[in-house]
């Protein structure tokens, strides 16, 4: 009798602590790979939610899966998803969602916190999905474009962004949970990558798009979109984006062009940049001293130079590179803090964490830091390697 009771207790604990109740076969799920949110065109109080399903059906020829797209409107995100579920023969599975595309129109006019609650509340949904804004186009159109190399648009978006994040230096990635925490925090604003369709969306929806060698519709990441007061304010140019990435310490590998003589350019790759920030109050105003110590490789040099016999030529390049980096970061900081009031570098938060006492004394709130902040940059660039050549092919003059 005692034994039976023990066994019953064990089974009870197992059932209650394990997931027996949500046993579901994998082919009963429609795996959602991308979600888009737009404002509904007719009813302005509703959101139009689009989802892309990646295991729609099997392509018998190539043995890969084909995608499909659903959209519906609702007052909440979940209501829209529920409507979609009524149309779809399978249950939606959001655990593998890869991207969240928001439309520019929506972000410019509304605080995203109005509709993002579901993404933090649901236990299943992937919190690592990447957030991006679609410029001009409706967000759901982005999810429709079929691209070569990666037939699933969401996976395409995600891997392109990840590659760009590692190698280009002009883009950066942000996940849903970071995005939301930046929105919630008063001393921080999010910055998200912008994606746009080049070409005609009508062509992009068709499978024919990928059979052409030069597809007529493509997805393109262009710039970073910055926020002010939780609303999208504008876009950073390429230079400003690079500068931003330096300041935000998010750059991994950056390519910088410098003009090495009157008409020719040289390209350097910055692999490792040490950035030191010193926060302080100068004249009762927030003041940030930034030291950038960049190490670069010379990838291309189209001017005449001889690095082994003429030490000056490499010093000159380094000087130019330092100057260039300084311009980039100055441009970025001016755009974000002087021209606008977009605290995407999270100085409000940083000052709150490090200089709380002074902040209190001077009566600053997290929000106010970005209005008065001043920057001072010190850049030191070093060229560590000139790859295989010790002089340029033009040789020394």
């Amino acid at each position, binding site marked *: 009798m005692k034994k039976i009771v023990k066994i019953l207790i064990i089974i009870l604990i*197992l*059932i209650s*602590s*394990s*997931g*027996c109740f*949500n*046993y*579901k*076969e*994998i*082919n009963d*799920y429609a*795996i959602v*790979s991308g979600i888009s949110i737009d404002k509904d065109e007719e009813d302005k109080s509703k959101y139009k939610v689009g989802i892309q399903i*990646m*295991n729609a*059906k*099997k392509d018998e020829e190539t043995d*890969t*899966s084909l995608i499909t797209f659903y959209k519906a409107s609702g007052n909440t995100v979940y209501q829209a998803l529920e409507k979609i579920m009524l149309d779809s023969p399978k249950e939606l*599975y959001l*655990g*593998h969602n*890869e991207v969240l595309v928001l439309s520019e129109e929506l972000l410019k006019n509304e605080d995203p916190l109005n509709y993002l609650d579901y993404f933090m509340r649901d236990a*299943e949904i*992937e919190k690592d999905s990447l957030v991006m804004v679609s410029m001009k186009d409706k967000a759901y159109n982005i999810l429709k474009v079929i691209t070569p190399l990666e037939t*699933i648009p969401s*996976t395409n978006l995600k891997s392109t962004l990840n590659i760009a994040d590692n190698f280009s230096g002009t883009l950066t990635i942000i996940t849903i949970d970071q995005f939301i925490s930046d929105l919630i925090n008063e001393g921080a604003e999010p910055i998200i990558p912008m994606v746009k369709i080049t070409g005609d969306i009508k062509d992009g929806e068709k499978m024919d798009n990928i059979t052409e060698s030069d597809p007529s519709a493509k997805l393109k990441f262009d710039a970073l979109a910055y926020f002010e007061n939780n609303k999208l304010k504008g876009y950073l140019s390429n230079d400003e984006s690079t500068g931003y990435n330096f300041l935000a310490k998010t750059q991994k590998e950056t390519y910088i062009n410098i003009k090495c003589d009157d008409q020719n350019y040289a390209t350097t790759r910055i692999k490792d940049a040490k950035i030191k920030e010193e926060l302080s109050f100068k004249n009762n105003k927030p003041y940030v001293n930034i030291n950038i110590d960049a190490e670069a490789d010379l990838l291309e040099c189209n001017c005449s130079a001889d690095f082994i016999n003429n030490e000056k030529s490499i010093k000159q390049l380094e000087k130019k590179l330092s100057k260039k980096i300084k311009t980039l970061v100055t441009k970025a900081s001016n755009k974000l803090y002087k021209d606008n009031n977009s605290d995407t570098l999270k100085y409000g938060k940083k000052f709150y964490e490090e200089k709380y006492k002074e902040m209190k004394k001077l009566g600053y709130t997290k929000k106010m830091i970005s209005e008065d902040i001043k920057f001072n940059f010190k850049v030191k660039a070093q060229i560590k390697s000139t790859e295989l050549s010790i002089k340029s092919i033009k040789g020394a003059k």
Partner: protein
Amino acid sequence: MTIGKDRKKIIEEIKRKTGNASDVSYKDFPIDNKIITFAYANTVSSATDINDFILRRMDEEKNNLKTKDLFLYIKNYIPNNSIKEITTMEDALYYLFNGFTLVIFDNTNKIIVFENKAKLNSPIQRSENEQSLKGPSDSFTENYETNTGLLRKRIKSENLWFNECIVGSKSKTKVALFYINGVCNLKLVNDITEKIKKIDIEYVGSANYILDAISNPNRAIFPTNLTTERPDFACQMLLQGRVVLMVENSNQVIILPCTFIDFFKNPDDYYEKGLNVFGTRIIRIIAMMLAILTPALYISLMAYNLESIPSGLLINFSIQRDGVPFPTVFEILVMSFMFQILREGDMRFPGKGGSSISIVGGLVLGQAAVEAGIVSPITIIIVGVSSVASLAFSSVELINSIRWWQLILIVLASFFGFVGVMFGCIILVALLASHESCGKPFLAPFEPFNKNAQKDAIILDKVSKFHPQNIYTKEDENEKDS
């Protein structure tokens, strides 16, 4: 029952007891006015030996014998290496069917027996079940004496001792317990000897009969003994302080006590480089885990924890399972079951039929089942991985016990997901840890930990090859002794 003095009565008695067996011959040999009778069983004794060494000798000495004491002469001067005097009818019958010749006299209440065993055994052959690449390839035979010789040949020390008993009320099988005096714990030897003496069975078919009779019920399902047909491995184990149980007519010996890690050892390990042995043993351990865990983990991933699968793989799984009407658990169970049938068929089918079974099995059950949409390709892979991994061991009993644990974990996984698999693993480890082989911990030398014995556990150190270590700690021994 003592035998009487009357020769004829003795013969009558033997005839009565053996049911007048036609293979027992009685040859009367008159000398002067006395008659002695030679009795032997044709089927188990060697006719040449009887003719050449007993009958011919008697014939030559016929005339000289008239004046001498027959009994003393025969006992002392007949050329034979194993002459015994016996006084009871039970002994007489035992020796008769053991290939001995009985010499029955008038007026003595003793019988003299000569050994004339026929060689009814296969010669020493190459080991088939535990093939050797580098080591000696001889294996134990069905002959008890040969087997003893194979051990003696390798360990010539006088310290190779053995206790012998006879088991089986009908079969009268010899069972010997080999150990190295001074290395093996005597209490262990005595314990096992006691147990063997208490065995009450009629027939001993092979060594496993003895094992079943002396071992306790086993809840972990894992085997708690090691059988081998390689004398070199048996010697290695003897030197580690184990006992080797040898049974007449059985070409396998049993090594007791045994530990869990012994199943990951191979006789050939001792002839290879330590580093390579370490690699192989790690692979065997991984194979064991794969064999037990793969189907269960797959089910819990697919049914409960989709988020743990990388998205690329998830899409593949999803489109491959598209159109399969059965639940994953069912698929796995069906395929595992089919594999077990194939394995059984392959093993039991006589002669060369095995290959046709594997062709039909491989093609029909693999390819065609997938194309017909009954199972998904990934299921075949999962079942294949776990089945192949389970075949990395030479012990059939181990493979069968792995099969049970596979099933237990599959059931737990299908109801409770990862939590169930974890629960099953904990139970498995707990059962293994509470397990004993001849009163010794099964998980030694890891639990209780014995630093010296680690040299022949997962790693194999040269030192342990040259000076084998007892796997059990001194404290462990003392604890058990007290």
